[in-house]
């Protein structure tokens, strides 16, 4: 072999060229690929992916989801059309000095139906609860939980898959709705949204996904805790009712007790206002309402009480998006914290639990 190679220069050249071209571009790549296939990460991820896929399929083919999606879509589109039919043109004219009339699609209505954001705030929790209330308990009751857990999957991936699938489905729905409203608004008014308006709507959509995922997590927590799906659904709805109806009443009672007289010192009034503000801050729906108003109404400058000093020198104009986000950052953090708390509790309850086949 060697002698033949040495004999002709072309042969030598060929071998020199061949060797690098054979070795370099293909081999290291293949080698890497093979390794990733045997990697531990892919071993864990693939079953997880299968679980998420299955959960999403289950959600989407489930009548419960279809009905709720239809309700929410109809409600939102109904609002949109009633807003667009006559009110919108007036709104556009009235707000000609305001640059953000596209956002009005989400916040204003002609009064026959509540505006879009009210529907989202109202039906969102229901949606979250309905997606999660039987997440774990139904698996347990069907006897599939022990079968799945006898497979080599980490126990938490069941919770994670349920949660992730829920979030994916919720995101899908909210983005669909937002874009639907935007698209039909675009067709009806004929004026495209500005980049800022578009970004505000996207941010609003993302934050409403966070809000609904809180309720999703809460209902998953109940589904871990309660064996009966009905109990867990009712608990979820009870929490929701408590926060929307009873807690404001209780907060009102407490606030009434602290109401300062007309001649009270500014300090007392300040304290009263602060109390009024902080008492409602633990309500997830209040947090979300504040987020909505700050993001969708750019002229909102503060969510809590403001002193005259703080107002001094302020120019009466709308805030840029960055500042609006900054304004709702505490509320946003609060929502995330509540979500994580629910998730943590479900984890604690679920990880140490004994999994019997049924019951």
């Amino acid at each position, binding site marked *: 072999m060697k002698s033949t190679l040495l004999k002709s220069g072309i042969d030598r050249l060929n071998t020199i060229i061949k060797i690098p071209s054979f070795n370099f571009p293909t081999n290291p790549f293949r080698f890497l690929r093979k390794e990733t296939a045997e990697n531990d990460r892919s071993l864990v991820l693939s079953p997880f992916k299968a679980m998420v896929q299955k959960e999403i399929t289950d959600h989407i083919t489930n009548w419960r989801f279809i009905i709720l999606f239809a309700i929410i879509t109809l409600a939102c589109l109904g609002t949109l059309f009633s807003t667009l039919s006559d009110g919108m043109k007036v709104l556009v004219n009235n707000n000609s000095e305001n640059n953000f009339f596209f956002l009005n699609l989400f916040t204003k209505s002609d009064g026959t139906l509540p505006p879009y954001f009210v529907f989202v705030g109202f039906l969102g929790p229901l949606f979250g609860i309905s997606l999660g209330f039987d997440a774990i308990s139904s698996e347990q009751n069907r006897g*599939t939980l022990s079968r799945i857990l006898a497979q080599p999957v980490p126990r938490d991936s069941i919770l994670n898959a349920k949660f992730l699938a829920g979030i994916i489905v919720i995101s899908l729905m909210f983005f669909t709705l937002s874009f639907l409203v935007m698209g039909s608004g675009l067709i009806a008014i004929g004026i495209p949204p500005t980049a800022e308006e578009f970004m505000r709507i996207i941010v609003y959509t993302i934050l409403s996904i966070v809000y609904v995922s809180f309720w999703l997590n809460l209902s998953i927590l109940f589904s871990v805790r309660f064996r009966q799906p009905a109990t867990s659904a009712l608990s979820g709805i009870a929490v929701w009712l408590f926060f929307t109806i009873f807690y404001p009443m209780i907060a009102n009672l407490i606030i009434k007790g602290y109401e300062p007289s007309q001649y009270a010192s500014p300090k007392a009034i300040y304290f009263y206002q602060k109390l009024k503000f902080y008492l409602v801050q633990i309500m997830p729906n209040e947090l979300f309402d504040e987020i909505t108003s700050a993001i969708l109404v750019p002229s909102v400058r503060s969510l809590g009480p403001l002193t005259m000093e703080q107002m001094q020198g302020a120019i009466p104009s709308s805030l840029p998006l960055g500042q609006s986000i900054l304004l709702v950052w505490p509320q946003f953090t609060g929502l995330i914290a509540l979500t994580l708390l629910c998730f943590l509790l479900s984890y604690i309850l679920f990880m140490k639990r004994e999994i019997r086949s049924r019951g």
Partner: protein
Amino acid sequence: MAEKSIEIIGLTKKYGEYVAVDNLTLSVEKGEIFGLLGPNGAGKSTTILMLLGLTEIDSGSVKVCGIDSSKYPLEVKRKVGYLPEDVGFYTDYTGLQNLMYVARLNNIPIEEAQKTALETLDEVGLTEAKDKKVASYSRGMRQRLGLADVLIKKPKVIILDEPTLGLDPEGVKKFLQLIVDLSRKKGITVLFSSHHLHQVQQLCDRVGIFVKGKLLAEGKISSLAEQLFSKNAHTLEGSVAETEKTSLSMKELAQKMEEMEGVAQVQMHDGRFVITSKKDMSVPVSRLVVNSGYGLHSLSKKEYGLDDIYHQYFQEEKQI
């Protein structure tokens, strides 16, 4: 020494004050079919859950295929197929889809999974029903699908928890035959938990009797009988009838029987008697009966089955 598939040492599990499994030590060899026999609530299922790391262990250690279940449950679950009692499936999916899902959870590549799924469905005889929704499956079909579900991941150990519950006799027979065939063919270790004596007797190489969280006895069925009835291992049943030559009353006959050397107990009722004794007494007993002028209608030696072993244990348990 053969390889151990399951090794349990000093396993204890408590629920509050109640001790579900009490210092259990047990080992099952590779390729063996081991029967865990015990009444409801004896701690069989709890033991199985601990084998799979599905519940916490209070003390002791569990090793499956040499892997500690409490520390590396995932590794164990890769090797163990578990068929829980009253197994559940996603009823909206077809049998094949259910199997494929489990295959994906086991990270079997899709093409290979499809092939194995069809093979296992064929093995358990569900090929025709593979595209039907599980909701329409009968109890026996579900149970067979459960077995396919266990087999698809090609386990080294199979754990079956009351797998024949709710099956008709013919179904039970087929199911058990399937398990035996599979175990022998593929060398799979089987841990079979049941309270059905006859099934365990038919199926298992070795049996462990499990009562109130304790393993009372363990071994081959024949050796279990010896262990248990070592005191009075023989039982004679017979019946006598009075004839004109009768010289003794029934009571006196019974007394004479009892006086014989080696006899522990005699029960006599209406001419029927049961004698428990240390050694085989059939010859002297029959001689006595005939000499006393009675006619001997029947005399039979009793063989011990698992039934008797089981009942004997319960008697002992009650006395404690």
